[in-house]
Structures are given as structure tokens and as C-alpha cells.
């Protein structure tokens, strides 16, 4: 080993060992800077998560709303049995006292469109046609308010028990209560049944 070199190396090591240190403030300041930086970072992350969640919720609500509207439209307008009623042409007959305050709606041009396939379908073996009911005028139910514009009302053809018709306010009497009745129901824009027209009653075996 070179003694001169060793002397210099030792002197440099001593110099390193005796070098000054950074002030205490520097460490404290850096610790604070570290805490501040990460507080900001966490806040930024939380904001991003919150905005993301809000966006997801908004999108979900939008999709749900769209889906619900679509489902409602599908429920109200089954393509084979429902036709839009040309509402301006409808006439509502004046209320008749004999029919327990139920209004009748005059025969309108609104007739449900029924596909030929369905018309030609053979009747179920459990259902027999009956001759006791003949198609007539629409009879307004208590839910019908002449002051409310009918707007996008629809006529829905349904096969219901007579008791169900009684429940929605149609005056069904006697034997018809136990029978199934093919009925046209005028459904308002708000989903409420406004009027009923009986088409055909069937005996159920």
C-alpha cells in the first residue's frame, strides 16, 4: 500500500465524518411536505372515485329509466291485441242513471287490430263461446274524467273473469260473474282503465 495514498484517504474519510449536517428544520419541512402531498393525493383519489361513482349511478339510473319506459310501452301495447285509439273521434255518451252512474262511450272507430293468425286460432278446449253477451258501446268507468284529455290512450283486448271486471268498476251481474269475458278496455295515458266494452262471454269448465 502507498502510505501517502492511505494518509490522503484517511484524511478524506475524516473530512466526511466531520462534515456538517442538514438543519433539523429541513427534516421537519420535508415531513410536512410529505404529509401535505399525500393528503392532496388522497383527496384527489377520493374525488376521482366519487366522480366515477356518481357517473356510474347517473348512467345506471338513465339506463333503468330507459328500460322501464320501454317495458311499460311493451306491456301496454302488445302488438297482437292493442291498437291506438283515434281519440278525437271518440264520443262519450251522457251518464245513465240506470247504470249506477256509469257512463257509456259511444261506439267509436277505434277497433282493436287482431292478427289473422289469432283470429284463426282454435279455441281452447276449456272455453266455450257464449251467446249471452253481445259487443256494444264502451261503458265509462268511475275512473274516467271527461275533463282529462285522452292523449295516447289505448284499447287493450283482454280475457278476464267477470269478478275482475266488477273490481275495476264495471257493473257485472248474475251469471257473468263466474264467466270469463273477452273485453276491450280503454286504458288512459296514465295506465288507468277509463272504459270497458264487452265482446264475448265464455263458460269455463
Amino acid at each position, binding site marked *: 500500500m*502507498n502510505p501517502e495514498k492511505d494518509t490522503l484517504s484517511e484524511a478524506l474519510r475524516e473530512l*466526511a465524518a466531520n462534515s456538517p449536517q442538514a438543519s433539523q428544520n429541513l427534516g421537519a419541512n*420535508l415531513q410536512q411536505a410529505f404529509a401535505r402531498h399525500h393528503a392532496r393525493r388522497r383527496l384527489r383519489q377520493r374525488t376521482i372515485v366519487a366522480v366515477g361513482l356518481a357517473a356510474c349511478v347517473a348512467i345506471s339510473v338513465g339506463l333503468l329509466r330507459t328500460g322501464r319506459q320501454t317495458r311499460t310501452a311493451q306491456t301496454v301495447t302488445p302488438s297482437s291485441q292493442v291498437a291506438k285509439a283515434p281519440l278525437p273521434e271518440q264520443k262519450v255518451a251522457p251518464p245513465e242513471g240506470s247504470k249506477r252512474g256509469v257512463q257509456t262511450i259511444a261506439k267509436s272507430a277505434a277497433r282493436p287490430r287482431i292478427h289473422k293468425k289469432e283470429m284463426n286460432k282454435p279455441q281452447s278446449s276449456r272455453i266455450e263461446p257464449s251467446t249471452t253477451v253481445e259487443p256494444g258501446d264502451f261503458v265509462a268507468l268511475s275512473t274516467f274524467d271527461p275533463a282529462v284529455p285522452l292523449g295516447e290512450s289505448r284499447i287493450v283486448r283482454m280475457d278476464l273473469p267477470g269478478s275482475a271486471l266488477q273490481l275495476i268498476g264495471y257493473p257485472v251481474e248474475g251469471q257473468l260473474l263466474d264467466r270469463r269475458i273477452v273485453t276491450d278496455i280503454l286504458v288512459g295515458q296514465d295506465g288507468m282503465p277509463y272504459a270497458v266494452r264487452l265482446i264475448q262471454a265464455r263458460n269455463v269448465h
Partner: protein
Amino acid sequence: MRAGRRMAHAASEDQELLRQLAKGNPAAFHTCYERYQRPIFRFAWHMSGNQSTAEEVTQEVFLRLIRKPKKFDAAKGALAGYLFGIARNVMHRQMAASALDVPLADEFNDDAAFAAETDLLAELDRQERLDVLHKSVLALPATYREALILCDLEEMSYPEAATVLDCPPGTVASRLHRARAMLKSKLQSMRCVR
């Protein structure tokens, strides 16, 4: 323990330390600061000769570590080397701005320096000796000074210093040899003045 030795010991811990630091663990930052602030400050102080500049450089190094801990790539070297690299870059900018660098004249006599250096250091008392040595180191050109500080003061190996200085280990060796020779020459000239 000095940075060079510590680098070998702490290399495996550095990544975990940085991971914790990136997650915002204050204890990890404290450990990191305690481990590296002295070598970084010392490097900056010997490079600049100025306490406040050294503090600014140290602060800048740790602020960068706080802001972008994921910039450190363990595959490229140890954390100490990475931090020294930042310190060196910051130092170069500071030096370029303040024109602190006052290089020695390049002419020197190797043989004469070797003979004189021992005598001068032996003659001076401890504090004087350290002052003279510090001023002599400070008077070296930056290229040689940083090689001397990293290898002789921080006891880094040539490959470690080469990573920091971004040059081959052979270049570090030759710069170090030249730096030592220039330092001896400087010490000799100071003795002549006295």
C-alpha cells in the same frame, strides 16, 4: 456507516421502503430520510461549499422522491445511486447558475505532490487540516471533485459511482486518480504559500 456500504445492505429494503413511501406511510419517509439525508447533504456540501445550497439540493432530492417515488427503477441500480444522481443533476444546475466552479490549473507534478501532501496534513491541527482539505476538494474541477467525493468520501465502488456519474467505471477510476493527484498538488502548493 457510509453510503457505499449501506447501499449494499439496503438494496433489498429499498423497494419495500419506496412502496410504503408511495402509499404515504410517514414512517417509511422518515426511515428513508434518516438513511440518505446525510450522504446527500454531504455530497452537496462538498460539491458546493455552501450550507444553504447543500440544504436546497437535499430538499429538492427528497421532494422529487416524495412527488414521484415510482420513478425509481430498482433494475437500474440502488436507491442511493438514484438519489445521488438527482443531487448531481440539481447541483449541476445550481453551479451553472451561480458559477461556483473554480477549477485548479491543470498543470501539476505528481511526484512532488506525493512527497508534500503527508507533511502538510501532519503539520496542521485537526480542524485546520479539515478546512484545508475541504477547500482543496472544493477547488477541484467539478468532474474530478464528484468522483473523489463519491469514491473517497462516500466510499462507493467504481460501478456504483459510475451509475451516479453516468459513465463507465474505467472513467471513474481515471477521474479519481486525476482528482487525487490534483488534490495532492493543491495541498503542496498551499504548503509553499505557508
